[in-house]
């Protein structure tokens, strides 16, 4: 029998501490494997949203090149041309790193804005990679998905914060 862990001076399980952020993003990427069928893109890119939330809440959690492995995993399930998420997530990681050096302070509102910009970039570029031209048609195509993603961001942040507390227990 294990002794009940002390409330003070304890260490979280290392595996759990590092696995939870990674697994949560992977699960987010795999949501499109669920039998949710529609004839148009409507579900927000949950993998990217979780990735952004973790990155914005914990700037030092992942190395700068983390966009490559996570993007690769997302590409397996998203249906986008392979390499799309690798490029976009890598560029987003680099952009956030540069942004963090410029910003003095950012709170939830700024995080929301940054995430919205990153998601808009990813959705637009994703559609361009598929072969759409950058015009009004494209914005009509991704508009609903983008608005849903922006509206959902605070809830995903809540989820990530809860996971963050849990992994440190």
């Amino acid at each position, binding site marked *: 029998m294990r002794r009940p862990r002390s409330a003070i001076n304890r260490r979280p399980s290392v595996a759990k501490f590092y696995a939870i952020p990674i697994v949560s993003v992977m699960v987010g990427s795999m949501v499109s494997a669920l039998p949710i*069928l529609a004839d148009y893109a409507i579900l*927000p890119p949950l993998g990217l949203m979780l990735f952004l939330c973790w990155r914005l809440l914990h700037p*030092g959690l992942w190395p700068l090149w983390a966009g490559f492995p996570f993007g690769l995993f997302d590409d397996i399930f998203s249906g986008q041309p*392979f*390499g799309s998420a690798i490029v976009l997530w890598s560029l987003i990681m680099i952009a956030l790193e540069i942004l963090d050096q410029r910003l003095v302070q950012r*709170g939830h509102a700024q995080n929301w804005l940054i995430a919205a910009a990153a998601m808009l970039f990813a959705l637009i570029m994703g559609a361009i990679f*598929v072969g759409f031209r950058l015009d009004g048609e494209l914005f009509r195509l991704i508009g609903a998905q983008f608005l849903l993603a922006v509206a959902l961001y605070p809830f995903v942040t809540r989820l990530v914060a809860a996971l963050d507390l849990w992994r440190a227990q």
Partner: protein
Amino acid sequence: MAPPKNRRPGYSRRAQYSIFISYVLALLGAAIGAVLLLISIADPRGFAVLRTAGAEITAPIGRTLAELSSGIGNLGTEIAAYFNAAAKNAQMQRELEVARREIVEARALKRENERLLELLDLVEEVDRVIAKGRLISASISSTRRMATLSVGSASGVEIGMPVRAPEGLVGRILEVGPTTARILLVSDKDNVTPVKRARDGLAAFVTGRGDGTVDIQPINLATNSLKPGDLFITSGNGGLYSPNIPVAFVVEKTVGGALGRPLANPAQVAHVIVQPIFQLDFKAAVAAETKTGAQDSESAPSEAAP
């Protein structure tokens, strides 16, 4: 949260190098991604192995949940119907679509009957079913319209085979795994389907728009005689799809053709069938038709239209 202050690590060479290397690695990752992207844009089937493996691993989840509830799929449509008018409106449209489908199929059957008189055994060949399955997932957050089918090469499914539902054409097989297959849906931007108008055989192309609607472009651009409600069925040209599968109906006339909607909505079809590639039988059909004479004027639709 304030960003951590360890970004300018003072005079430590080691720390400076590690930051520099992390930037190099990140840019390298992006560059590798760009190369992979170019390869997969040039060849959409590139890296199919990885995607197929992913689909195979997650297929049990999709299969189980799809069995449990087929209701989730209708979510988007239901919300749309609510916003458009009311549930009743949606109900009536559904009934109208059923009626439309029945009309097309009746017309197609009539034509089929005429052909049967001469080409009895051939028509049986065309309607053969390779496998039956259901759609277990879709690229729900991507503008590329793909869906995963619950059967694969173990059931005889091959790349290029058409997939249809009772309502109409769903798409064609793009990638095949042992027990799953990826379908490129009719509404994908890169999917072009040769069709003809059910009423008079006017030849056209159906191209996806990526948002659940399709562009219908008549080959003869001089006359845009399309009207809302016009039904289009596969023409059999190109040899991929067998003729007379309902594809789409016209919603709204546009400058170069019309805006249409596919008859088989992936969110609503429960079961689909995989059919053999038509071309294998196509040569036989052409040979048979030339032998029996040009009795079938619809097989060369509208090229001579005014």
